């Protein structure tokens, strides 16, 4: 079976891009989001601070890349926004509405506006359902009529580069890349304003990965959604995102425009991540190899959470690091010793929130 590239198809319901001059519309706003999960380890009780005070805004048509190592809270952040995980603090706004505590019928209605594509295309699709049934499920949940659903399935299959005849097939008949297309069709079925992609290409081979990344860019342009793209692969994040947030142990350590952050990283952790990625050590610089591993989120280090692995750590890092804002840019860093040499000469760093 081939993977035909997506052809632009005119879909009447598809929104027109925000090129009509309207000001950027904030789709998601997150304020000081916290997800603390109580756990028991034998007799010891503890609290996993999976997400600990994350804030950001995301406008329509933009993609936020969430980068970090496993356990840093990037998936939990996305799941808390989607209300797949209860948050324990902070607020989430979707299209201006506080959805932090929405429940019941109302929450079900809200789900129409936010959808997710999961990492593992082998476990995200019910093996006993046909592709058509899988894609129809969110629409059935939203109460669409049967004939509308049937028409929409064909349209969605074409949108993600599959064919109408595939609706009768079962997931096991498809390759990993094709399954990820099915998962994407399901997510697009309710025309969400927010699409979360949780490591959508990590399980795929390089050649298939490229096809999927192209598809996601096409879909975003066409449907003008806000996207959150979660990945541990910096080159992939760099390719698809407009903004990036680097996470470490439940907190954002650096955020900003993707090119700016990747080319001029200010936080030592961002520098280490970039330097650890194969093949992309800018200027073939000596690799920064961090010692140790990410500490347990049950008892995170006091003050700056990165300080135990940081080669720049000082007494000051025992206090909480501020989010420093360089003049004239959205580039923020939570570090007492940012690599200011990496900043454009003109900008200075102002400490404080």
């Amino acid at each position, binding site marked *: *079976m*081939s*993977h035909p*590239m997506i052809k632009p198809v005119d879909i009447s319901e598809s929104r027109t891009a925000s090129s009509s001059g309207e000001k950027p519309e904030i789709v998601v706003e997150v304020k000081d989001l916290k997800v603390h999960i109580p756990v028991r380890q034998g007799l010891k009780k503890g609290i996993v601070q999976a997400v600990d005070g994350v804030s950001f805004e995301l406008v329509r048509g933009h993609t936020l890349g969430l980068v970090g*190592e*496993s356990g840093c809270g990037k998936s939990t952040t996305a799941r808390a926004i989607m209300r797949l995980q209860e948050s324990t603090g902070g607020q989430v706004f979707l299209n201006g509405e506080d959805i932090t505590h929405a429940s019941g019928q109302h929450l079900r209605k809200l789900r129409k506006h936010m959808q997710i594509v999961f990492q593992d295309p082998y476990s995200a699709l019910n093996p006993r359902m046909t592709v058509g049934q899988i894609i129809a499920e969110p629409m059935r949940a939203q109460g669409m009529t049967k004939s509308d659903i049937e028409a929409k399935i064909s349209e969605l299959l074409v949108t993600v580069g599959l064919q109408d005849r595939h609706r009768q097939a079962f997931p096991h008949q498809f*390759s990993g890349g094709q399954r990820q297309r099915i998962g994407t069709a399901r997510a697009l079925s309710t025309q969400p304003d927010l699409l979360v992609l949780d490591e959508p290409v990590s399980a795929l*081979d*390089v*050649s298939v*990965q*490229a*096809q999927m*990344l*192209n598809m996601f*860019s096409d879909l975003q342009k066409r449907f003008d959604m806000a996207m959150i793209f979660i990945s*541990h692969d*910096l*080159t*992939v994040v*760099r*390719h698809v995102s407009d903004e990036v947030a680097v996470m470490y142990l439940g907190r954002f350590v650096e955020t900003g425009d993707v*090119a700016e952050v*990747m080319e001029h990283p200010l936080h030592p952790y961002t520098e*280490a*991540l970039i*330097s*650890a*990625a*194969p*093949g*992309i050590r*800018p200027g073939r610089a000596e*690799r920064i*190899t*961090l010692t140790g*591993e*990410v500490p347990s989120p049950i008892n995170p280090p006091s003050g700056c959470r990165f300080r135990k692995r940081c080669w720049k750590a000082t007494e000051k890092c025992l206090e909480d690091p501020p989010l420093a804002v360089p003049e004239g840019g959205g580039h923020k860093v939570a570090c007492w010793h940012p690599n200011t040499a990496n900043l454009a000469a003109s900008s200075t760093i102002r400490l404080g929130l």
Partner: protein
Amino acid sequence: MSLLEVKDLHLDFATMDGPVHALRGVSFSVEAGSMVGIVGESGCGKSASVLAAMRLLPSNAKITGGGISFQGQQLFDLRESQMRELRGNKMAMIFQDPMTALNPVDRISKQLGETVEYHHRSATSAQVRAKVLKMLEAVGVPDVERRADEYPHQWSGGMRQRAVIAMSLMNEPDLIFADEPTASLDATVSAQVLDLLATAQAERGCAIVMISHDLALVSEIADEVLVMYAGQIAERATSAEIFSESRHPYTRALLRARPGWGRREERLFTIAGRPPDMLHPPKACNFVERCTERNGLALCAIEKPELRTVGPSHQAACHRSDELEMMEVAL
């Protein structure tokens, strides 16, 4: 004589649908003390080649031709008992997932000790323990006296992979196969593990064959890279050559499909179609259906290109390898 010589290896896997021709004439050699990378996508035969050399293939696998010699011995002629003398001693393997490579019910120290005891029957338990602790220390495990007696589940993924690497190094092998050794690890930890492998190769002089799907990762540490496609070697070159002077359209496509670092391209290069069905492998060029650099050459659909020399240390299996234009890949 090379340390390892794989000659014209053919390997089938028996399936319900018939034999899958996983390897179809794979030849390469590994020199003592060198670092060779094998790169390719799922199902290209990279792991099968290595498992064949360790003689750890599943029972449905059948060698249908060719052979592998290690230090002059024909591996397929050896009895299983002779093979056991080699494994863990002269040649060792590091698997992708350290959790499944370690026994969950035995202490780390016991598992590492077994490797020594098996091959050195006369060693006293004190000698074995000293050796285990020394090796764990060498791979960067802190507080070894205490931690060596813990169980695998008490160790993090990165530490477990260190234990597996320590285990592979226990008897100072001449050759280590590392099958995606960093695939299950995080970026900063995988950098540590790569450094560790490079150090092992440099300081102990053992040859390492590293398998990965990531061309960039392999070329960072390997001297030489083999690119496999559909059970055959598509290209063999030094790490530097593979980036700047690749002579095979598949390698070139792989390089171009990867998101670059320097400039953000609007669209990524994609490889259309999918690899050939290995139940019925193509008689002509494996890549002809997906090739964008064929330039209408009729020969590509008729005759299989042989792996031929295109430079002093460079071979490619493409009819047009001499005509392919130089390509700069921005990383």
